[in-house]
């Protein structure tokens, strides 16, 4: 599903992360690592937000460098601490992502309902609490028909009830559409809440399988 080819990310002269060669099959992966280990750097690079050397391939053929538009249609991302223009409303952000990611019309409705977002989604983002903002960014990551969804620290700032809903979203997309997930978290995922394929660890500027 995802393949790293001589991946290397530096911040100035400081080497942040290096993955020479690694292949991930379809599945749900939990990326562990302490604060500052490079989990967000890894996810932001896969999302196409940070620049890096080397290449990342989706399904063995779609390269983030050579087919940047096709790749971005198929890889969605939710940031750990999302930032959006304060003057836009949640509905306007959803419309923007629906257009960009070619999402089927009305796809967001079920998500809005299950996460109880209808009451605030029409308000400007500047009035949102951090939990509301986080819910919006998670929803945006589910729009369209991505093959891979990257969720950076999805557990922080949302309440336990919403967490259970998020787990259902992930399980449904994985089981019905075969969407893969990379979830980063320094906290424990609840036992059995998700059918995890494997656990990965970001440590000593590299990424490896655990066990």
């Amino acid at each position, binding site marked *: 599903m995802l393949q790293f080819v001589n991946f290397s990310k530096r*911040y100035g002269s400081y080497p*942040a992360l290096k993955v020479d060669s690694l292949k991930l099959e379809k599945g749900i992966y939990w990326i562990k690592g302490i*604060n*500052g*280990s*490079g*989990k*967000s*750097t890894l996810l932001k690079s896969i*999302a*196409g*937000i*940070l*620049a890096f050397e080397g290449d990342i391939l989706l399904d063995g053929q779609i390269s983030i*460098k050579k087919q*940047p*538009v*096709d*790749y*971005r*249609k198929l*890889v*969605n*991302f939710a*940031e*750990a*601490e*999302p*930032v*959006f*223009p*304060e*003057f*836009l*409303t949640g509905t*306007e952000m959803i*419309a*923007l*992502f629906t*257009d*960009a*990611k070619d999402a089927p019309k009305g796809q967001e409705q079920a998500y809005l309902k299950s996460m109880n977002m209808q009451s605030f989604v029409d*308000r*400007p983002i*500047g*009035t949102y609490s951090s939990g509301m903002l986080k819910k919006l960014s998670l929803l945006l990551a589910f729009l369209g028909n991505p093959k891979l969804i990257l969720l950076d620290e999805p557990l922080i700032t949302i309440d336990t009830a919403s967490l259970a809903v998020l787990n259902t979203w992930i399980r449904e997309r994985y089981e019905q559409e075969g969407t893969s997930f990379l979830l980063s978290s320094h906290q424990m995922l609840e036992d059995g809440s998700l059918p995890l394929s494997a656990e990965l660890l970001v440590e000593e500027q590299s990424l490896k399988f655990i066990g």
Partner: protein
Amino acid sequence: MRSLTNVLLKVFANGFFRVHAGILLFIFLAMVGVVPPQYLIGYHKALMLSMGSNLVMMVLVFAGWLIYTVKSWHYVSGQIFSGRQHFLFYSSNAFSKQQQLRSWCITQASILSPLIIYGLIAVGVSFANHYYALPLCILAYLSALVYLSAVIYTRQINGLIDGSSQSLLLRLSSKWRKPYFSLCIYHIFDARKVPYLITKALSWLIITGVFWVFADVKTDVRVAGIAILAVVTAHVVLVFEERKFEETKLSFSRNLPYSLMKLFMNFIGVYFVLLIPETVWLFSRFSPIMAFELFLLGLSIIMLFHCLLYWFGLNMDKYLQWALGLFIVLFWVIMFKLLWVLAPINLGIAYLIFQKNYRNHDPLDLRIS
């Protein structure tokens, strides 16, 4: 109470001078450099004396001071509601109103210190020359400015934050679709109205000034070309603001499937809208072909300024040096009547810089975790 004064001075007065250091230095140098050194003291003494003896002169100076004060209100109010200073809403207003007013008076007096020092010297000079009525007005006016400002700030801090306030434009446009390219425009008209209006005022001054200076050859396309070059150069701050918004608030868009060409056209769209007032002027003044040529020139120069920032990042010093350098180079190219060639070359170079750097640079806001 000293603790409050100390915090307010550090946050607001120091902040004000840090942000406005460049323009204040410029004004200072302009005031010192306006006459040869040997006449400097005599010149300012005469200026101060006329302030203390001539009503019209005094009113003119008061108007200038008011502009400075309004600028400081704009800065301080912006800071008060900026989020980082929210702690003042649950700390400073535990002091009594009198104490708060006193601390804010000291802070505002410090912000106005360049005016106060100049004003006090003028009062001294006038007293020494036996003028009394107008100098007393100067003292009263300065005190009133300080006190009024302190009252405004204290009111703001003791009111409640209304996070839902939205500008008229956004309320009117709430039902419209907002495509990606429109976001930068909404940002400018929502949060950067003052820089936008200042830029447009500058544009008008430049156009009037250039055509006044070159009144004898005003139908020459080169004069119009130079006016457009100067007008676009006046937009550098707006271009910088727009790029900053893109780096900080639109970093999510780097994950969206937009091609580089689409993004480039998107920014052309943004500047097309921002340059509408100038375009209207061009088409009302020149023949359609000449107006179109000049319009294309302006758009190509502004895109070049925009794309430079992908290359070396949001570095204002370097950016201003490049803007100045490019101004000189383009000025000479226009003098040789190469306007038609210039537009495609500018756009080509702008696209090359954009293509080489857009996906190869990291957005400004880097949270390594």
